């Protein structure tokens, strides 16, 4: 009677088959389980608001403002007036159509950005007309707002990550923002915080229909940190104003702490140029300006010969090495023969006998050439002498990266014996061969921040703290410790040199930098420089250089000022330095006439000379 049971048997077999398939789908193959999590649940990052940046006096430098992205979901659009919308967005119709096509190619269901970081003003106009464009909507996001038009070289900027960034750090996903330069880059992790996650339930049209499991699995973001910089924004602003229409840099450091009070690079640019939808075109404009190079941070990256200020370092090394003392005198006859047939000029009168102090304030080349010779010859061989000299300089942070908290910089250059052995064969060079180093010309290269740093070391009588920009994070002073670094010079040797630097202002080369009531110590520099013009080495007008610190006792500020092609040191650099000091210490300027001259004066004619294509005169 199988006939009576055939359907029962069938039912059983089918049920077994179903059970087997169920076991496969639900118990064995996890493949279908994870897929479900992917297509039904949207994992969406939750960004903490990016941290604010304040200056040392708690003035807001950088905060956030709402920006808007115009998004489109191609599927939801209807026929619309592309011409009107593209003109609202200030896009050409071709570009607009290209963006729409790209969005369609990416996905017709998932939103794509058509125009990013629309300003508040444009946003208002678009918002009003948006009803005409179904499928388009504005998505709010947080973008940077800069309260001052200065300090862009310090603050840097943020922009959307590219593919390379995402490869380097898997934290970032497409469309997220990343610090590109300056503080924004160096303190990226502190300023951004740590994004969290929110999970949303999606439907099959990819629409969010609510939080997933009431947010049970959400991860709260770690809030970002606000930071205080060591910058005094008023000083920064003033410095940028002083360098207007000039090229150069100012670096001001508080010697006791190594805190950078101002870092000015001229020409600079308004940091707000790199916010919003014009960022990339503005950036291109700035980057393409290869003549005045606004993106080039002259304070950190420009490597110049240090010039006369370097003499004070040679003096310190000589004192430490015992090859001179403060009474040592050398005779200058408007210069001297440092080797047979090789004469180094000096502006001292014939027969001048300079001691250390007067040599510094008169900036006597002869004196320091002899001093340098003594340093080099103090050891068994010139090589040893030179390497020892370099060693001293390294202790002032020269010839290497300083280790400050920005990702831009240059090491400068201090030559050693190997370097000269390559040029001349070994033993083929002696002190006179490299005599230019004595007066800060020759092969030596320094950056303005290195100059400011060694000035701070002198002001501290023998040590410096690695210069830095961070003062506190969330008001917590205990930030990363910046080391105190001792120089190789004993503190007793600093006094005669500092006396000389004080005389520079009192009765030496930089009388113009005197400030009533403040004992300023400094040293001018006038630096010969050359460029290659039409294949020929051409000399340009000298760079104007000044280093200074003040007051003499318990110095509050040490700085280096550099004005390209500004001619002699006290013409531009020294007055600017004195105004900076006065501004920082006294808060107001008494020497208005000098201030006006500096603020209004410019060197654009000078910079135009080599570009004019005509013969030109220098140092006039």
């Amino acid at each position, binding site marked *: 009677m199988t006939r009576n049971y055939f359907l*029962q048997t069938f039912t059983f077999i089918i049920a077994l088959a179903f059970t087997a*398939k169920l076991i496969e789908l639900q118990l064995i193959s996890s493949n279908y*389980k994870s897929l*479900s999590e992917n297509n039904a649940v949207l994992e969406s990052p939750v960004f903490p608001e990016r941290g604010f940046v304040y200056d040392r006096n708690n003035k807001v430098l950088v905060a956030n403002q709402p920006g808007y992205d115009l998004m489109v979901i191609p599927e939801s659009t209807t026929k619309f007036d592309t011409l009107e919308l593209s003109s609202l967005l200030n896009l050409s119709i071709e570009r607009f159509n290209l963006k729409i096509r790209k969005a369609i190619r990416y996905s017709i269901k998932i939103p794509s950005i058509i125009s990013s970081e629309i300003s508040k003003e444009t946003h208002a106009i678009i918002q009003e007309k948006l009803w005409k464009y179904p499928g388009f909507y504005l998505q709010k996001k947080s973008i940077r707002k800069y309260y001052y038009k200065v300090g862009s070289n310090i603050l840097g900027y943020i922009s959307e990550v590219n593919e390379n960034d995402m490869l380097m750090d898997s934290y970032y996903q497409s469309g997220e923002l990343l610090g590109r330069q300056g503080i924004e880059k160096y303190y990226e992790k502190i300023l951004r915080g740590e994004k969290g996650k929110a999970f949303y339930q999606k439907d099959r049209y990819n629409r969010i229909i609510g939080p997933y499991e009431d947010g049970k699995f959400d991860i709260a973001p770690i809030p970002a940190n606000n930071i205080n910089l060591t910058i005094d924004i008023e000083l920064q602003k003033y410095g940028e104003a002083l360098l207007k229409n000039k090229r150069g840099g100012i670096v001001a450091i508080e010697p006791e702490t190594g805190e950078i009070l101002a870092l000015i690079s001229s020409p600079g640019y308004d940091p707000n140029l790199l916010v919003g939808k014009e960022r990339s075109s503005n950036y291109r404009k700035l980057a393409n300006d290869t003549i005045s190079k606004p993106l080039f941070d002259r304070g950190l990256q420009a490597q110049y010969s240090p010039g006369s200020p370097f003499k004070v370092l040679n003096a310190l090394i000589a004192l430490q090495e015992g090859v001179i003392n403060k009474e040592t005198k050398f005779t200058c006859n408007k210069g001297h023969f440092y080797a047979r047939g090789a004469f180094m000029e000096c502006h001292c009168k014939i027969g001048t006998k300079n001691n250390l102090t007067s040599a510094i304030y008169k900036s006597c080349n002869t004196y320091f050439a002899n001093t340098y010779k003594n340093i080099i010859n103090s050891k068994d061989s010139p090589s040893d002498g030179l390497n020892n000299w370099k060693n001293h300089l390294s202790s002032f942070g020269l010839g290497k990266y300083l280790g400050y908290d920005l990702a831009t910089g240059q090491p400068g250059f201090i030559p050693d014996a190997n370097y000269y052995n390559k040029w001349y064969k070994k033993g083929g060079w002696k002190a006179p061969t490299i005599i230019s180093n004595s007066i800060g010309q020759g092969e030596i290269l320094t950056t303005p921040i290195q100059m400011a740093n060694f000035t701070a070391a002198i002001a501290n009588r023998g040590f410096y703290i690695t210069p830095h920009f961070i003062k506190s994070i969330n008001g917590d002073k205990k930030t990363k410790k910046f080391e105190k670094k001792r120089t190789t010079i004993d503190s007793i040797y600093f006094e005669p040199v500092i006396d000389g630097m004080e005389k520079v202002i009192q009765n030496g080369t930089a009388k113009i930098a005197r400030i009533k009531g403040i004992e300023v110590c400094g040293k001018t520099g006038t630096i010969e420089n050359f460029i290659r013009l039409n294949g020929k080495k051409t000399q340009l007008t000298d760079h104007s250089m000044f280093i200074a610190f003040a007051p003499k006792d318990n110095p509050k500020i040490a700085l280096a000022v550099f004005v390209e092609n500004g001619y002699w040191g006290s013409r531009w650099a020294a007055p600017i330095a004195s105004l900076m000091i006065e501004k920082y210490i006294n808060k107001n300027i008494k020497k208005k006439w000098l201030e006006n001259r500096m603020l209004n004066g410019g060197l654009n004619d000078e910079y135009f000379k080599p570009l004019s294509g005509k013969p030109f005169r220098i140092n006039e």
Partner: protein
Amino acid sequence: MNKTLIYRIDWIIIFCYLILVVFGLINIYSSTYDNETSSNLNSLIGKQIIFLLISISFGIFILGIRTRFFQQFSFIIYMISLLSLIGLFIFGQTVNGANSWYFLGGISVQPSEFAKIATTFMIAKHLSGFQTNIKNKKSLIMGVFIILLPVSLIIMQPDPGSAIIFCSFFLIFFREGLSFNYLILTFSAIGLFLVTLLAPINFIIYSIVLISLFFIFYIKNKNPKSKIFPTILIGISSIVFILSVNFIFYSVFEQRHRDRFNIMLGIIEDTKGLGYNVNQSKIAIGSGGLTGKGFLQGTQTKGNFVPEQQTDYIFSTVGEEWGFLGSFGLITVFVVLIIRMLNQAEKQTNIFRRTFIYGISSLIFTHFVINIGMSLGLLPSIGIPLPFISYGGSSLLTFSLLIFIYLNFDSNRLNDW
């Protein structure tokens, strides 16, 4: 109805029935649950509950009807049903391209559902006739005719899914003595059909020739006198069949038909287009794991990823929210229901009642196989509901009435009429 009915009625089936309809309501509620309003009582689930109450009221009324009444009125019921199917061409409403619905005062009615009851009655009446013997060609042709009449009307709607369901009535014929050779033939044809789609046609033809030759040598070797003609005939007809399948598949079928088969056979992968429903259903079921995500917790269900989830794909909700245990439990209840009814049918002495109960079982069986098979991706997608579980008033009413008629027939097993 009398007092002894309580003792005579099949409580196992009532129990199964209640489990299924309540479980159905739960899953319909979940499938149509809207997060925002947190309520859908006034919509689909409400309608389904109303239909359930109507079904039970009708059902209780049915319990009091004598078997003889059904037998006498079978033909009339059948004719009314056919008329209602014909009427669709004049008064019907087209939904999703099929003209299968009447709209009566806000309620949509699907007459093809009720045609299932009517046809069951007519088959039972035919098979229980004094002169009917299914082994007899005349009786068989009459039986086939009874089935094909509504099928042809339903195909014209067109609603091929429901039409296929009517094939389940052939299962009764086998119970009543139809040769199993027909069944073997059918399965062989289906097998050959699938093989034709899966393998190169030349290869299959050569294989058939080789197998036939081998078989002939084998039987000749064993007994030189045996006839080789039947083997040759089978071989040739197989090849003809394969060639015609090939022709039909590639020349008569449209691309969309071919796609359905190809997706089911795994020849082409298409998770975004036609294969979307099945794939989403499998994802939902697979995501349930052992214990499922719990009532209203199914992310696939909430996300509405599976189309038609409250109707044809309700099993994916079960799979996702109740997991393997829930799905297996549901299958078990169906198996118990079907086998219990079949066993009880065998105890019947009245042929009308027995064939009718066989009809009910076959109907439920076919729905069960096709619907769950489709949800699991084992069968091509054919839009038919899962009895008692899927949303749909006509379907729920139809199957409820069938259950109550069963309860009636079973409890009166010992009465002659």
